[in-house]
């Protein structure tokens, strides 16, 4: 034991400041250069629920497409919207205010929306940071049909996640289009979560 201590002492004594610095910098650089070949991929342990389905005040629409928009709480976890909109725009927009921390988005793989529709629709979902009236749109997905659970991949080849993770997001915007506007459209959103 004493011998090891003596040896360590000698090594430290031998190393001049410049040598220590070079060794330290070399090790740091090597750590960052070697790590990408064996990356640690983070994952979200539990589902992270977003959008409040109990509070109608968090659901709204700023869109000028609507002549009238009102959200009503029918029963817990079931929000209904009454809307009358200008058909010439050909789409419907509404959003929910919700905090989506960037620290949850980073490990999350998908954004899941459990939704039911009585018609075939195209739906775009944008995560937004809203401030000063300037929306920052980041994600746009187009899915046709009416599946129960829409799964949106967050890390996409043409729009990698790391590029748009600038800050906590505070709004999810839903844009629904390509549906029959002469008939009633019923959308039932039961869960929205990150996984």
């Amino acid at each position, binding site marked *: 034991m004493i011998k090891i201590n003596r040896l360590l002492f000698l090594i430290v004594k031998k190393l001049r400041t*410049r*040598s220590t610095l*070079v*060794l330290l*910098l*070399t090790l740091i*650089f*090597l750590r*960052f*250069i*070697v*790590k*990408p*070949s*064996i*990356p*640690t*991929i*983070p994952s979200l342990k539990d589902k992270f629920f977003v959008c409040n389905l109990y509070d109608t005040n968090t659901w709204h629409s700023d869109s*000028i497409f609507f002549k009238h928009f009102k959200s009503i709480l029918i029963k817990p976890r079931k929000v209904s919207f009454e809307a009358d909109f*200008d*058909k*010439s*725009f*050909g*789409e419907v927009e509404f959003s929910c205010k919700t905090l989506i921390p*960037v*620290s949850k988005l*980073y490990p999350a793989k998908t954004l899941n929306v459990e939704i039911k529709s009585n018609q075939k629709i195209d739906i775009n979902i944008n995560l937004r*940071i*809203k*401030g*000063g009236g*300037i929306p*920052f749109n980041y994600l746009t997905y187009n899915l046709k049909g009416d599946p129960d659970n829409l799964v949106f991949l967050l890390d996409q*080849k*043409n*729009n*990698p996640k*790391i*590029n748009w*993770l*600038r*800050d906590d997001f505070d709004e999810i915007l839903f844009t629904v*289009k390509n549906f029959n*506007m002469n008939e009633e459209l019923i959308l039932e959103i039961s869960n929205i979560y990150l996984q």
Partner: protein
Amino acid sequence: MELSKIKTRLTFHPLLRFLKKHFLFLALFVPIMIYTFYPIIKIDFMDWDWLEIEYPYHIIPSGMPHFMFYLVTPYGTAYALLGLAHLFFGSEMLPYYILNVFLRAVGAFAIYLLATWWSKKKIIGIVAGLFFGVSITGIENTNWVIQFPAYLGPIMLCLSLYFWKKFHDTPNKDSLKKSVIISGLAFFISHIRIYALPLIIMGGEFYQYIFSKISKKYLGIRNQHIKLLLAIFFLPFVISYLILLLTHNLIVTANVFSVTSPSILLQSLTNGYPPTIFTFFMFIGFLVFPPFFYPGAAIFHLTTTEDVLTILSLVMIVLSLSFLFFCLIKRQYLASISSIIAVIYPISFYLTQNKLENLEPAILISILVGGTIFILLSITICHIWNYNRQIGELGLIALTVIITHLLLPWASFPIPQNNIQSAADPRNRYYLIPVIGISIVWGIVLNSSLILINNYWQTHRSIIKRIFFPGNLLAISLIIIITYLLSMHSWVTHNYLMSRSSYSYNERLNELWKIVKPKFESIEDKKTERVVYFEGNLSAKDINIIEYYMRHKLSEIGFRNPYKAHTVFFTSSKKVIYSLIHQEPGSLALLGLSQPFSLDNFLALRFEKNMLIDIKKEIIK
């Protein structure tokens, strides 16, 4: 007697003295620049030029207070200079291009002067100036001609570094004033390009504090220098931050000041998310070995780029190992320890390349070759610093200029996007300042190679020994590589500008614009969205150009400055107009309108031999 008088006058004429002093640089620089940039005489404005050139005229009329406020914003001085140039040149293109290349040449000359003065070696300055002059990396500053104010960046950076060094050589009140004023002025004029100047200068101060022996006599004035510099650098930041905070809200301010979340960026780096670190080396690769220099897999008789990558990885490992052993033979243990990074880098890259999905093969080669060479160059510079402080310090400054000015694009775009703001294209304007650093590094390497050869040739008389000595061979190969890179830069830049000069439609667009402009000048309400339908005996290409040009000319200006410009949507499609007039579902989305369509805000025009006919009634029917 008379003859000697004439001789004296000629010898001391400032212009002649200047030419004599810089003859070698000018003799090389002027012909190379003329060859590289003569295609500009045929180049038209590009669409973004049209967009930007009108911009100052939308700011200035909105009132002097607004303009003064604008002047302190990041692009303020650039647009003010553009406005000034527009006063003199109008819409004539050639003067803008000549001014641009002239400023580029002045920038190159400033780099030549700085590098020569700092290192006391003319060859370093000559190579640095030449590289900067013809570099394809960052060519957007010339190609996108109205970016000419960007070249004030290199000029001001060189000036501020010159006066900063002068102060440290002879610290007194006079040199202090000059250093602080020039640094402040440089940061004010072009802080959008030389945003890392405070970091470089403060890094230099830190370096001086550690490595230079400061006599107690000068300690006070040096502390005063640091304090004044800190104040002058941080004041604009604080002012612009406060203005943003007062005019917008906190969230917007935070968004302006952080492009990618710093904590996420750090996490992705520690987790080893492959694109993060290799994007930084991609930027480095664009400087050292731009992807344009890669001729393609076919030329090597290899079927895929993967084969090329495998072979190049091996070549880079061998190169780094040779460097390591060369350092060991020369008993340079610290250099050999740090060159382990260069040996590991290609191995790690080879194992990771499959995870870099978004990148083109040529870019991957840039990352591999450029990254490895850059690591070796950095080690060489640090090694030179041990023996020659003057050249070493210049090299360290050059490396700092590269690294600090690449950190922001790296933090903004860890992976390339199909976005005009992305630094994933080596021609991007963001590379203007890092090119200065790499130019100086090449100059230092060439100088070191020449010294190596010279020393060896003086000590060995046998020609065989002179030629076949490993260090000598290394030095000769380095000289060949640098000459090759310089010629490639010049050739690729020349070809790129030649390809740009093949478009020539601006004259026609000008004529059309003259016809369309009065239609909008008479309308005062500028917030309402307008739709313009046009038709005529036009080819598909003409229609595209007109649409693109007009849309940029009007609606993009409107988008950027809602106070003064119209928001106009152009179309040549009868179907779109039909569905708008009949208010069909989804018709507004066809053009991206956000306001209901009204016939009052609709224009229909037909072009006939440069005549304009109003066909609104005809179309409505």
